[in-house]
C-alpha cells in the first residue's frame, strides 16, 4: 500500500494523500478530469474500474469521493473532489467519458445532492420526479411532506435531458438534448411487467423488432435507505441490509457488520466468522437457485421454477431454524451473530449437500442442454470484458465476460483466504455464459460449505459490544461480494452513535443501466433474455 501512495504522490505532487488501507487523495475540481485520465491510462496505475461515486455534504461544502480500483493490481483508492461554486449550483467536471458507469453514478449524485456534472450527456434526476423539491441527502433538506406530497396524479415526464457545459467566458450553459429522436417509435415496457423482475421501466425505441435505444427509468421502489440510515443508530441501520437485495440478506448484513467492527476495532470470534461465511454461501446457493428458476420461467420453462424452489425452500428451512425468519433474517449483528446455531444445523447442511449434485444434474438435463434454451441464450447479449469493467458489471455477470472480479478473492475478507474454492470465470460473455456461471458457482459454494460444516469451532457466537456503539470520527470504505456482485459501503462517522453518511454501492444499479448498451441492435424478445440473465433486483437498484 505504501507503494501506491508513493506512486501517487510522485505523479500528482499537488494532491494530498491520507489514509492507510484505502488511500484517499484530494484533488481540486479544476484538475480532476486530467487526474482521472491519468489514473485510468497510466500503465503503472490502470484504475479502470470505477467502484462508486459517493456524494457528500460536509455542510460547508459539497463534493464527491470517487472510489477506483485497478483490475490488475487489486488496489482501491479514493479521490476526493470538492465541488466548485455556490451551494445553489455546485459543479464538478464529469468523468462519464472515461468510465461508462459514471453517467449513472453522476446522475445519482445529482439527484441526491444537486451537484451538476459538466459534460455529462444525461444530467437528469435518476430516482425522483422532475418536480421534486430539494435534494434529499443534503443535510439541510426540508423533509416536510407538504413540499413533496404523495400524489395520484401521473408524474410529469419529459423527452429531453440536459447537458451542462462551461462556455469560454466561464459561465455554465444548459442545453436541452433529446433522449429519443423525434421520429423514433418508443414502446414503454414496465414498470408493471412480469419480465422486468420488479418495478423497473424501460422506454424502448424500436425499429420494427430491433431495439435502437433503451432509456432505463428507475425509482419506482426508491425507499431512501441512505437517508434513513443517517437518523438511526448503528445497530438499527443493519436491518435495511435485508431489504435491498433480499437474496443477499446475509451477505450484506455480514458486510455492514464487518465495516462497523473494523471501525470500532472489535475482534469477533472464529465461530462467528465461520457461521457468517456458511450463511453467506447458503444464501448464494438459494439466490442462484431462484435466479435459475425465474429466469427459465421468463423464457417459458415454468417447470424449472418448481425444481429450483425445492432447494431454496430447503435452505430457507435451515435458516429459519437458526434465524427465525424466512427472508429478513437480521442474523449477523455487530460482534458476531444474534443467536447460536440450531442444534441440527450441521445435519441439515449435510443433507442439503447430499441432494445438491442430483438437483444440479436435473437442472442441466431439463434446461441447459435444451435446444430451445441454447438457441435463445447462446450468443445473445454479448458483453466484452472491457465493457464489463467500464460499466462496472461485477458478480457472475461480469465473470461471465472474463473479468475475474470476485471480491472474495480480490479483497479477501473474513475467513475466505483460508478456503479452497475456485473463482468461476468464463469468456463467452453471452447470456448462456451468465447462466452457466451461476450454475457453477453453486458447486463452488457447496465446496466451501463442505469444508466448513464439520469444522465449526467452539467459542462464543457474539462478543460483548457496548449497547450504545459510538464509532470514532473518520471514514471507511470496503467492498465485499454479494450474490450479484461487488457491494461497496462507504461510512463516514462524526464520532456520534449515528452514521454521518452511509453510502451503499450496490451491484444492481450498473447492471440495469448496461441493458441499453447490450440490447442495442438485438431483437425485442431478447430484451427479456438479456435482462433476466443480468439478474438485477430492483430494490437493490433503487435502494
Amino acid at each position, binding site marked *: 500500500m505504501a507503494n501506491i501512495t508513493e506512486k501517487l504522490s510522485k505523479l500528482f505532487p499537488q494532491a494530498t494523500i491520507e489514509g492507510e488501507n484505502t488511500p484517499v487523495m484530494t484533488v481540486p475540481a479544476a484538475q480532476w478530469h486530467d487526474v482521472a485520465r491519468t489514473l485510468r491510462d497510466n500503465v503503472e496505475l490502470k484504475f479502470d474500474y470505477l467502484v462508486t461515486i459517493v456524494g457528500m455534504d460536509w455542510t460547508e461544502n459539497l463534493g464527491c469521493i470517487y472510489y477506483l480500483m485497478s483490475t490488475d493490481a487489486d488496489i482501491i483508492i479514493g479521490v476526493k473532489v470538492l465541488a466548485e461554486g455556490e451551494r445553489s449550483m455546485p459543479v464538478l467536471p464529469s468523468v462519464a467519458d472515461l468510465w461508462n458507469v459514471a453517467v449513472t453514478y453522476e446522475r445519482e449524485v445529482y439527484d441526491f445532492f444537486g451537484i451538476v456534472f459538466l459534460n455529462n450527456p444525461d444530467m437528469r434526476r435518476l430516482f425522483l420526479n422532475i418536480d421534486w423539491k430539494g435534494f*434529499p441527502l443534503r443535510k439541510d433538506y426540508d423533509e416536510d411532506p407538504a413540499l413533496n406530497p*404523495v*400524489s395520484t396524479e401521473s*408524474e410529469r415526464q419529459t423527452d429531453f435531458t440536459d447537458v451542462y457545459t462551461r462556455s469560454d467566458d466561464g459561465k455554465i450553459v444548459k442545453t436541452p438534448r433529446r433522449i429519443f429522436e423525434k421520429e423514433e417509435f418508443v414502446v414503454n415496457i414496465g414498470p*408493471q411487467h412480469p419480465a422486468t423482475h420488479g418495478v423497473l421501466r424501460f422506454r424502448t425505441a424500436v425499429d420494427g423488432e430491433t431495439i435502437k435505444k433503451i432509456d432505463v427509468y428507475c425509482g419506482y421502489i*426508491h425507499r431512501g435507505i441512505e437517508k434513513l440510515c443517517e437518523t438511526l443508530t448503528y445497530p438499527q441501520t443493519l436491518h435495511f441490509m435485508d431489504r435491498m437485495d*433480499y437474496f443477499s440478506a446475509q451477505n450484506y448484513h455480514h458486510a455492514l457488520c464487518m465495516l462497523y467492527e473494523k471501525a470500532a476495532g472489535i475482534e469477533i470470534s472464529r465461530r462467528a466468522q465461520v457461521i457468517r461465511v456458511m450463511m453467506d454461501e447458503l444464501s448464494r446457493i438459494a439466490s442462484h437457485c431462484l435466479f435459475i428458476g425465474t429466469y427459465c420461467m421468463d423464457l417459458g420453462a415454468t417447470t424449472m421454477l418448481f425444481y429450483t*424452489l425445492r432447494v431454496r425452500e430447503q435452505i430457507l428451512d435451515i435458516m429459519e431454524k437458526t434465524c427465525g425468519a424466512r427472508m429478513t433474517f437480521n442474523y449477523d449483528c455487530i460482534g458476531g451473530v444474534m443467536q447460536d446455531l440450531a442444534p441440527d444445523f450441521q445435519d441439515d447442511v449435510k443433507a442439503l449437500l447430499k441432494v445438491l449434485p442430483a438437483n444440479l444434474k436435473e437442472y442441466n438435463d431439463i434446461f441447459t442442454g435444451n435446444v430451445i434454451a441454447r438457441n435463445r441464450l447462446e450468443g445473445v447479449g454479448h458483453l466484452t470484458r472491457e465493457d464489463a469493467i467500464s460499466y462496472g458489471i461485477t458478480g457472475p455477470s461480469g465473470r461471465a465476460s472474463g473479468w475475474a472480479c470476485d471480491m472474495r478473492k480480490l479483497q479477501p475478507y473474513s475467513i475466505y483466504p483460508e478456503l479452497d474454492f475456485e473463482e468461476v470465470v468464463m469468456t463467452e460473455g453471452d447470456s448462456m455464459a451468465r447462466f452457466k456461471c451461476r450454475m457453477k458457482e453453486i458447486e463452488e459454494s457447496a465446496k466451501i460449505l463442505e469444508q466448513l460444516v464439520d469444522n465449526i469451532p467452539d467459542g462464543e457466537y457474539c462478543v460483548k459490544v457496548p449497547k450504545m456503539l459510538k464509532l470514532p470520527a473518520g471514514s471507511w470504505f470496503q467492498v465485499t461480494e454479494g450474490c450479484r456482485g461487488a457491494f461497496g459501503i462507504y461510512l463516514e462517522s462524526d464520532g456520534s452513535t449515528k452514521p454521518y453518511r452511509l453510502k451503499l454501492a450496490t451491484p444492481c444499479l450498473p447492471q440495469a443501466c448496461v441493458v441499453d448498451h447490450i440490447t442495442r441492435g438485438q431483437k425485442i424478445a431478447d430484451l427479456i433474455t438479456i435482462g433476466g440473465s443480468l439478474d438485477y433486483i430492483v*430494490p437493490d437498484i433503487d435502494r
Partner: protein
Amino acid sequence: MEVTTKSMPYEAWKDNEYIEKLVKELQESGTNVVVGSLDKLINWGRSNSIWPLTFATSCCGIEFVSLGAARFDMARFGWEVARSSPRQADFMMVAGTIVHRMVPVFRRLYDQLAEPKYVIACGSCAISGGPFRKSYHVAKGIEDIVPVDVFVPGCPPRPEAMIYGIMQLSRKIKVEKFFGGVNRQEKQKEFLAAHPIEGVED
C-alpha cells in the same frame, strides 16, 4: 350463519365477530329468496376462483412467489392463475413498498382491474410504510390510495399468513350481495369520490 371457506373449521377463524357483523349489516335490508339463492351461487363461484394480479414491488413479492411453488401451492385453492394484466385479475395482492413514484401507477392498475375487484395489503410496507415509514419517498400505507379489503401483517408475512389472508377475502366474497342490499360497489364509489385522482377532470 357460519361463513367459512376451503373447509376451514369455523372456530379456526380469528375474527368471527367481524364477519357476523358484516352479515348482519348486509341482511338488514332483507332479500327475497330467489335473489338470495342467485347471490349464493354467484358468490360460490367467485370466492373459489379469485385470480391475483402479479404485482410485487419488493421483498414481500418473493414470498408470494413461494406461495405459487409446490410447497405452499396456492393452486389447491384456485388462486394460482396469476395474471399479468389487470384486466383479467380479480384481486391485487399489494406485496411490497409503494413509493411516491409508484403511487400513480399503482392507482391506475387498480382502476384498470375489472369489477368486482379487491385489494389485499400484504406486509407492513403496504399497511403503513413499514420500516420505511419515515422516509421521504415512501407512501405511508396504501389505504389512502385504494380501498383495502384485507390486511396481512408481517415483514414479510409468512406464506401461511398470506394463505389465511386470501381465505379471509374469499370468505368476505361469500357473504356479498350483488343484487340489492348494501352493495360493495357503492362503498367503493364513495371511496373513489373521496380520493379522486388529482389533475384529471371528468
